[in-house]
């Protein structure tokens, strides 16, 4: 069974939902931010929240956590890494994903259900999704406006690194080209602002987020079986 490791920073708050979401697809463990050994982990989740109080810039300090060196090595070896919300910000600050997340254009904290389109099924976390599928999952953030210089955005589009895009009329924060999530060049590191871990049970309105965890679990099975 695929083992997910969910990183817990001081100030993380979506770590337990991420643990619960990943646990529905595989086996999930919490990883304290001082951990430097990712042995036995098949996929890493960097969860949402307010790591280090969002001081300086969201994610700017968490990227220097001891565990992030191990995450960078894990990613360089092709290991699947998913950054959600603050986790996405951390991965961008760490240079594991392109771009940056700026304060929302409307200057307000946005907290609502949005429709997100999956554009690429060739990443570690979307293998089980049909391209064009619409997911109903919530956003809740203050700094979620995706930014990269225009030429970098062109490159991302050309390389198929735009993985999730807000559906028409659903861009909650002024993100460039409606980008909700991207992947790295290796396609194993994925980040998005919406929260799939908050959409894993019909009880809370949608279970559309399960597909991301299930995709990683399905892709991780061969690796897990080899161990």
């Amino acid at each position, binding site marked *: 069974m695929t083992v997910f490791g969910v990183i817990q920073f001081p100030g993380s708050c979506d770590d337990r939902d991420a643990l619960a979401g990943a646990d529905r697809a595989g086996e999930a463990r919490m990883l304290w931010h001082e951990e430097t050994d990712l042995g036995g982990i098949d996929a890493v989740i960097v969860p949402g929240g307010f790591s280090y109080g969002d001081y*300086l*810039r969201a994610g*700017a*300090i968490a990227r*220097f956590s001891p565990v992030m060196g191990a995450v960078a090595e894990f990613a360089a070896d092709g290991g699947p890494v998913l950054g959600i919300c603050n986790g996405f910000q951390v991965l961008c*600050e760490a240079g594991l994903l392109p*771009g*940056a997340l*700026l*304060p*929302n*254009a*409307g*200057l307000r904290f946005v907290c609502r259900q949005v429709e997100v389109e999956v554009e690429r099924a060739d990443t570690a976390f979307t293998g089980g999704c049909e391209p064009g599928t619409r997911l109903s999952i919530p956003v809740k953030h203050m700094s979620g*406006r995706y*930014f*990269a*210089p225009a030429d970098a955005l062109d490159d991302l589009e050309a390389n198929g690194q735009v993985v999730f895009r807000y559906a028409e009329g659903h861009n909650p924060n*002024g993100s460039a080209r409606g980008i909700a999530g991207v992947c790295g060049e290796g396609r194993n590191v994925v980040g998005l602002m919406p929260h799939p871990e908050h959409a894993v049970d019909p009880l809370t309105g949608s279970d559309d987020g399960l597909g991301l965890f299930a995709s990683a679990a399905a892709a991780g099975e061969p690796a897990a079986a080899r161990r």
Partner: protein
Amino acid sequence: MLIRPKEGILDPQGKAVERALPALGFEGVSHVRVGRLVELEAESADHLGELCEKLLANPLIEDYEIETVDQEPRHPRTADGARRRTSPRQPGPGDVGGGGGQ
């Protein structure tokens, strides 16, 4: 260190301040940009640029300037004055650096 959003990047905080000004009777103010100021004491100015690049600013979205002011430390390291004193240093061209330095 003076850190501000790069030119051309929407700064909603600056816009909000700008829109509030006419209501207070301040006319003719435009292009408001809100950044942040980081003050610190350092024994040497050698690595301040690197410090900005790696932590204090995100060069993708922010520009920074470094201004060095030579003065007695306001917060000496030890009570017995064991802290090494830095030699006087004149601001040079390297002090206003950054520009994002990508």
